[in-house]
């Protein structure tokens, strides 16, 4: 194993070896077979934003490793009374070993890591990164493909506002995939191509999806489209994943979605529930990957 990071703040600071270490460890994890490796360790799950999937899977992952967890919702704590992130963090540091945090501000976990000096897991910060999601997406792809190297992975939707899109693109690019980001300019500015090597942009979904190995659909919020003066019907016509568009991809292509899905918006029922959809596998893998993350950061550190 290569040098172990103290925290998981994003995919950007990781090298390919470190990414593979997380994925390799995840293969050994199974929530149905609890371990005791983090027995006695205390993990705070601090959520400044609502989340169902990410919070529950981190909680189950921590418990499956034997850790003690405490879930803190921003609206039910001193945070609501105006306490700063720094003070909340310092308070928690004296009673827990690690913090998993979801926060609406980009970079919040970077700040927390710098101020506290204990393992921090970024469970999503603003529009910045969502590294555990990218790791579980890569893990899911590797259950269907031998390697990411050389794969054509197409991500379609609201990339600008998506921390998942950023983490995914960074990770897939680092592991040698060809990443195509697809969407209208207001949701996908040209500078997105500068995220990393092997990342290109497309405004045409039919072209982008051709011969793809993986199709990753992102949630598109209707209110957001309205704010950006995009006509919903036009968006759907150009960027919705339909059964016929799935057929443009490779025969063995898989369809993914980090959730929450909005059926009828970014994808149709047929695409979401089709034989090529691996959306539910992603959820199950989420627990394994998050077990691996906590094990990697906290295991063997006493």
């Amino acid at each position, binding site marked *: 194993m290569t040098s172990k990071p103290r925290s998981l703040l994003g995919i*950007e600071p990781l090298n390919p070896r470190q990414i593979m270490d997380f994925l390799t460890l995840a293969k050994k994890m199974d929530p149905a077979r609890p371990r005791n490796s983090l027995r006695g360790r205390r993990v705070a799950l601090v959520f400044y934003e609502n989340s169902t999937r990410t919070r529950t899977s981190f909680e189950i992952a921590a418990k499956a490793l034997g850790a003690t967890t405490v879930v803190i919702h921003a609206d039910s704590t001193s945070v609501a009374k105006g306490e*700063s*992130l*720094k003070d909340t963090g310092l308070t928690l540091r004296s009673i827990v070993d690690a913090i998993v945090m979801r*926060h609406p*501000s*980009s*970079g*919040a976990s*970077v*700040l927390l890591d*710098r*101020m506290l000096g204990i393992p921090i897991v970024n469970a999503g*910060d*603003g*529009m*910045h*990164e969502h590294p555990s999601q990218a790791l579980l997406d890569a893990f899911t792809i590797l259950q269907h493909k031998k390697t990411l190297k050389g794969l054509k992975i197409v991500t379609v939707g609201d990339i*600008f506002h998506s*921390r998942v899109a*950023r983490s995914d693109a960074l990770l897939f690019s680092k592991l040698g995939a060809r990443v195509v980001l697809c969407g209208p300019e207001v949701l996908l*500015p040209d*500078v*997105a191509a*500068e*995220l990393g090597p092997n990342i290109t942009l497309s405004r045409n979904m039919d072209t982008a999806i051709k011969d793809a190995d993986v199709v990753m659909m992102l949630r598109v919020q209707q209110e957001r489209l309205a704010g950006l003066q995009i006509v919903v019907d036009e968006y759907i016509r150009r960027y919705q994943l339909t059964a016929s568009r799935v057929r443009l991809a490779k025969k063995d292509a898989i369809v993914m979605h980090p959730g929450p899905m909005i059926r009828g918006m970014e994808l149709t029922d047929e695409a979401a529930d089709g034989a090529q959809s691996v959306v539910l596998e992603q959820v199950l893998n989420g627990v394994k990957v998050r077990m691996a993350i906590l094990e990697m950061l906290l295991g063997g550190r006493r």
Partner: protein
Amino acid sequence: MKKSTKKEQPAAAAHGFEKAQSSPVASLLIRGGRVVDPAQKLDGELDVLLRDGRVAQVAPPGTLKDAAEIVDAKGLVVAPGLIDLHVHLREPGKAYKETIKSGTAAAAAGGFTSVCAMPNTTPVNDSPAITRWMQDPERGAVVNVFPIAAATVASAGERISNYGALHAAGAVAVSDDGLPILDDKVMAGALETAALVGMPVIQHAEDTRLTQGTQMNLGATSFRLGLRGQPAEAEWRMVERDIRLAHGTRGRLHVAHISTARALELVKLGRQTGVAVSAEVTPHHFLFTEEECAGYDSRYKMNPPLRTAADREALLAGLADGSVDAIATDHAPHALFEKEVEFDKAAWGITGLEIALGAALTVLYHERKVPLARIVALLSSNPARIVGFDGRGTLAVGAHADVTLFDLKANWTYDVRKTRSKARNCPYDGMRFKGRPVMTIVGGRVVFRA
């Protein structure tokens, strides 16, 4: 510029200021220094005699003898006192961030003898009463304070304030810094009225309709960080419009903290077509680029934001070739609790009074080989001209006895714990500079001694 963990001598000995204050002298002879006074095109070994608050004589070395106190300036540059066109002293109303006393103490330690204080105080300085209050000796200012009054009532951008009365009360310019005047008619009115009184309108050029919710410069870096970005367009479109209005009204426009290559190009073009337009650049914009935001370190969050490497190069070229008129700090003190928060919640601004000269000498003089006379012009004679100071920004006989002595070659490390400002919101701690202020003299009195 390299960070150094080794702490060297503090920016100034802590006792210097108090000692100086206790010993005002009627006459002071600065002997053996290199006098650089671009207003008189002077650069050479000369002695300077200050008497009764004025420059009494400038003469060849050794020819002046009669003085109560003698300062040995051997090996030092003797320049007209530095003038900062853009500071936030936070009084009235926000004394927890800075006071006129603490801010001007920092100015003195940075070699500044005069500072122009922006009106975004609480309440906004849109009245002769506040303008006078800021200059009252009761405030304990260490250097000269010249208020810049609000260009519009409460800086609301709707009705222009009473420029005649504000000027009579001591205001040297008008500005709604931080709250740019969007309305064309109001801006035209401001330029026209200010010209009648002989004041420039200082505009923080930002079309705020393009910058809602933004945190840094717009580009690949802001995209990667997931922060909303300010387009360069928000600045240059405003500069473009203001130059057009200045042309139509024959008003005098000063562009505050210009930060983009394109806006600077527009200033050059405007000047060529005869528009009275000038521009200032801050130390942080010629030191840093947007890449500094990569760690979400809010000490690098200011408005206008740090821009691209190409923008920085254009500013450096402009500082070197004279198309930029002045270096101004935009010294913007904040309490730590306002900065040690999420990047998008952090207050905008950075302090700069104590490093401005060091940064200019390090980057412009030592790295870029910009002539010393040009650097002194940027920090003294040009700012004096922009706000119409009579007898400042020069060491001509009869001028105010405001003098800055600095050591061109001294290597030093900034230690923010020793700052005279109440605030510490800057990334300069541990940064090394070459060239530092050694003595600051205001009205013939030594107010800072390193």
